[in-house]
Every structure is written in structure tokens, then in C-alpha cells.
């Protein structure tokens, strides 16, 4: 494989890993606070639809982003109500949210735009455009570093950089702030947090809310940056891959970045069977590449590659002692 192709592949990796990373970090906040969330998929999908719809109607992608975040937060509140306030089953609530989003997006899209459950194609200000980082043009002709900077690091949409910046930010929030300490504690031992006089309910709602915002950005990225408009089921299992990455990363932010990059790379490979064939000089089955993230996750879950231990209070509704 020549250098240019490698750069292309890595470039595609970054683009495809971005929604995974955002959703993965979203799940990280929620699960670290003890709220399992298999509704990442649905929240992304709802955000993708509403962001594309608003961007198409107003022609302003930033309004679209806000609307997408809003849609995702609404579903987060539903999840919060079900799993925090009414102490229901968090997994079932997540399943319900996924279906709610899968159904509602198509129903509303069909009655709104009458294009068979999709939104109109976005163009111009309705989409996030790639931004060129400073000096990218100037450094372009420097060997090795120039192309890496120009092709790989520069020239992505703003949301890609937002996603990448979220990694250190999440690390800082979780491990260096009081809020983060409490958030982690509420996922391990909510009773202790409660005894310390800190509201378990508030912390968990805050975590679920942050999860909603990040899923919203992830969904908006799908519809307004990665592609130009919403199509039915466009999240295509990314919420589940993000969940897999989260387990792979053992609920830690930096490892989440590595896991998402790995899964993004697998997705990029699946898109370029010709490159794999040239490099490995034999044909790799396309289906195998598609399901590799899932198989990897099962292997990791089985504990063959280090044990993944979830937050101890995960999935358990907190009932105050009386």
C-alpha cells in the first residue's frame, strides 16, 4: 500500500470514527453514573433526522445541530424518567427508545417532506463544510509531514475536532473535577453518595443529559457532515458499535478514543475491499469485516483479552433507604 492510499484510509477512519467516538463518550457518562444506555442508537437517529430536517428548512446547519441535540435530549429525558424517577428497567427503556426513534423519524419525515422517509439533500450552509487548518496549504509540499497535516489532520468538519477535543475534556471532567468524582461514585456506590448529602437523582439526570447532548452531536454529524441529509435507519448500528467500543475501552475516555479509531478503521477497510486485497494479496470477506467489531466485543466480553468490569451499580435503580 502506498503512502497516499494509507493516508486516504486513515482519513476515512477519522471521519467514520467520529460518530462512534461521540456516542461512545455519551455512553461513558451515562454508564459511569450507573445508567445503562442501549438507546444510544435511537438518540443518534432522532438527532440525525431533526438536524437534517431543520437544516434543510432553515438552510442553517448550526440551527440543525441545536435541533438535533434537542431531539436527543428529549429521548434522554424519557430514559431518565423511566430509569431514575420510575426505577424501571434501563435496558427495556433503551430498547423502547431505539424503536421509538426508528419509527418516528420515518413517520414524521414522510409526512413532512414526502420523499419516502428521507429529508431533502443538504447543500451549502445546510451542511458542515471541511475547514482547513492554518498553514495547511503552506505546509502541503513538505515531505511526509505536509501530506499528513494537509490530508489527515486538516480538512475535516468542525464536529470532528469537537469529538476529538471531547476526549481530554471528558478525562478532565471525570478525573479532575468534583462533579466527575461524584459521577463515578454514583455509578459504583450510590448509597455512599447519598449519605454524603449529594443528590443521586441530580447526578444521574446530569449524566443522562450530557449523554443526550453528545448523542445529539453524533447524530447531527451523521446527517449534516458525513452525509448530506437523513435517510431511514442511517445510524446503521453505530450506537451498538459505540457500546461495544465502550466495553472494549473498559469505560475510560482515552481508551474509548483508541477503540473507536480501531472500529472506525475496520469500517474504513470494509469500504475499500480493493485495498485490502492488494495489501494482503487475498480476498477478505466483506461480511467478516462488517461484523469484526461485534466479534471482537464478544471475545473481549468473554474475558479472553483482559476482563471488562462495568461500574458496580450499573443498571440498578437507586432506592433510598427509609
Amino acid at each position, binding site marked *: 500500500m502506498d503512502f497516499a492510499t494509507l493516508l486516504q484510509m486513515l482519513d476515512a477512519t477519522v471521519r467514520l470514527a467520529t460518530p462512534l467516538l461521540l456516542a461512545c463518550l455519551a455512553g461513558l457518562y451515562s454508564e459511569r453514573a450507573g445508567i445503562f444506555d*442501549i438507546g444510544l442508537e435511537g438518540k443518534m437517529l432522532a438527532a440525525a433526522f431533526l438536524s437534517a430536517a431543520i437544516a434543510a428548512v432553515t438552510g442553517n446547519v448550526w440551527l440543525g445541530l441545536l435541533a438535533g441535540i434537542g431531539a436527543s435530549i428529549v429521548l434522554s429525558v*424519557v430514559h431518565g*424518567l*423511566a*430509569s431514575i424517577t*420510575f*426505577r*424501571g*428497567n*434501563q*435496558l*427495556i*427503556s433503551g*430498547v*423502547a*427508545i*431505539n*424503536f*421509538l426513534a*426508528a*419509527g*418516528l423519524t*420515518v*413517520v*414524521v419525515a*414522510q*409526512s413532512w417532506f414526502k420523499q419516502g*422517509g428521507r429529508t431533502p439533500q443538504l447543500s451549502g450552509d445546510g451542511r458542515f463544510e471541511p475547514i482547513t487548518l492554518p498553514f495547511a496549504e503552506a505546509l502541503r509540499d513538505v515531505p511526509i509531514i505536509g501530506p499528513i497535516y494537509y490530508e489527515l489532520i486538516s480538512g475535516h468538519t468542525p464536529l470532528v475536532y469537537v469529538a476529538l477535543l471531547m476526549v481530554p475534556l471528558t478525562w478532565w471532567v471525570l478525573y479532575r473535577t468534583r462533579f466527575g468524582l461524584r459521577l463515578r461514585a454514583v455509578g459504583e456506590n450510590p448509597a455512599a453518595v447519598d449519605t454524603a448529602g449529594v443528590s443521586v437523582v441530580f447526578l444521574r439526570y446530569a449524566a443522562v443529559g450530557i449523554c443526550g447532548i453528545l448523542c445529539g452531536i453524533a447524530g447531527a454529524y451523521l446527517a449534516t457532515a458525513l452525509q448530506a441529509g437523513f435517510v431511514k435507519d442511517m445510524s446503521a*448500528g453505530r450506537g*451498538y458499535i459505540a*457500546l*461495544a467500543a465502550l*466495553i472494549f475501552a473498559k469505560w475510560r475516555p482515552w481508551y474509548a478514543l483508541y477503540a473507536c479509531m480501531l472500529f472506525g478503521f475496520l469500517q474504513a477497510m470494509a469500504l475499500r475491499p480493493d485495498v485490502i486485497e492488494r495489501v494482503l494479496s487475498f480476498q477478505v*470477506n466483506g*461480511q*467478516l469485516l*462488517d*461484523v469484526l467489531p*461485534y*466479534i471482537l*466485543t*464478544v471475545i473481549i*466480553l*468473554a*474475558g479472553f483479552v483482559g476482563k471488562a468490569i*462495568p461500574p458496580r451499580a450499573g443498571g440498578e435503580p437507586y432506592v433510598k433507604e427509609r
Partner: protein
Amino acid sequence: MDVMPKWADVILIPLISILLAALLSALVILAIGENPWEALKLMVNGALGSTYGWGYTLYYATNFIFTGLAVSIAFHARMFNIGGEGQALVGGLGVAIICLFIPWPHWSLALIGATIGAAIFGAAWAAIPAFLQAKRGSHIVITTIMFNFIAAALLNYFLIGALKAPGMEPATPRFPEATHLPSFQDMFNFGETTLFRGAPANITFFVALAACVFLWALIWRTRLGYEIRSFGHSESAAKYAGISPTKIIMVAMLISGALAGMMAINNVQGEAERLVLNAVEGAGFIGIAVALMGRSHPFGVLLAALLFGFLYQGGAELALWTSIPRELIIVIQALVILFTGALDNMVRMPLERLFLAMRRA
């Protein structure tokens, strides 16, 4: 300790949840500019107004009985099997192999063979997540979700590879004539009047009914069922009583996978008479809604499956005659899961308070 009488728990709460889901669905229909009352009439007419409609309703219900029972038995052991979709897909693979490669003399033998094949394939697909849960503590929800995706890819692999029929379409060849199951049209043909004309409901419906009875007997009339239920109520108590968690997890999940796989005799052998991509069409997930609504009781599952069969067929009619897309059914399904499953306490808490107040008065 029970605050509410049993009938309130079994009938009243599901009923209120369903009404809430229906109300919200009506609002959705209203919001997209259609008349909910007209829509309901159309659905009732299309799904229950003719034997043709009934034939479709019962066909869908058969699918949902199997997947609903599958989720139920896992629920009894306090496990959440989201993998019904994948297990049903792989069950379809079993049916296809049995029907294509064994020269069956008669459909009745083929039905028995296909049922066993579907059950074994479905159970095998559930076995790996079950084993990982029992032995290595990997969460069954995550592993079964992953296995859904892997199943879809596996099926894809076989349908464009080893089992593919000549032609463009990724599907198996048609099954031989001798494996075709009698449809309701064949069974209820009284000379002049042919009922269920052109509808896909077939003899599998009765297999599904038998599965309901079987599961009821298993759960409430056998030692194994008792062990499964006690494990579901309290793992530590079950362990103390000498019940092996590994055994219960494995057995419950194997039965669950087998039931989900058996759905394939309805949709693959009974209806399509060949295996196509995406043969399950989400029925595995509807099983979750059906099990939650039916309170994991086989009779409840039967009723809930009939309701969802009606919704499915009615939804298809809606999509045909109005501008309401089929996906409305997914919304209704989501609302049912939400209200009967996740927001159960929202309905239960005020009701309990009401009953408590009534008792004091």
C-alpha cells in the same frame, strides 16, 4: 404484602399501559394530519374484517407467539434475550438446510424435521451468549445484540455463497414441493366457500399454540420450571437450595433460542418457501413487546401476539390506503415496550396508592 389484588396487576395495569400507548399513537397520527378514528376503523377492517385479513393477522401472530415465548422464558430466569432476531434468522438457516438437502416424502415429516432443525439452530445461536453469561459473566444483553449482527452477516454470507439460487437475488432455491406446509386456505376449504384465500397463515399456528401449552406446563408444572422461576426471583436463594446457576442459565437460554428459531417454520417454510435476506423482519424484537405485555405468561403472550398481529396487518392496510407509513407500527411497538416495560412504575405507583386508600377507607 401485595397492595393490589391480582386482577389489577394482571389485567388493569397492562390495559392502562396499552391505552396510554394507543393515546400517544393517536396523537402521532393526528400530528401528521390524519384522522386516528378513521385509521383505527381501517385497521380493524383490514385485519379482522375478512378471513383474508384474519389469515394475515394469524400469520403474524404465529411469529410473535414464538418470539414472545422465547423472551418470556428468559425473563422467568431474569435474563433479557434481545437476540431473538438473530436466533430466528439462524433458525431459518436450519429450516432451509433441512428442507433443501433431505428428500422428505411428506410435509408432516418435513414439518417435524424442520421444527427440530430450527430449534437446534436457534438454540445453538443462543448457546454461546448463554455460556459466556454463565461461565464468564459477560452480560447477555450485550452479547445477544452482537450476535444479532453476526447472524445477519452469517446469513448474508450463506445466501450469496453456498445456498444461493441461480440468479441475481440473494436467496435460496425454492424448497421442494413435498416440504410445503398446508396453509389455512388448504385446510379450511369447504367446496363452495374457501376461507383465508391467499393469506399466508398456515399449520404452524397450531404448532405455536402447542408451544404455548408446552411452555406453560414447563414453567408451572415441572421441577425445571420451578428451578427457573426460583432462580429468577433470587439467585442467591436458588443457589442455597442447590440449584446450579450455570444449568439454569444454559437451559433457559437454550429453550429461548429454540423457540425463537422455531419461528422460522412459519415464515421460511410456511410462507416464503425459501430463505431470503431479512426474513425475520423485526419479529424477534416484537417478541420483547409481546412478552412484556403478556406478563411472560404463555396465555398473555398469545393475546399480546394476536394484538400485535392485528397491528401489523392493520398497519400494512394503513400504508396501502392512507399516507401513514408502515413505520407507525414500530412507533406503537416502542410505546408498548416503554409503557408496559420501562415505565411500569409510572402506572403502578398511583394505582397502588389508590388501592391502599380504598383499603383504608
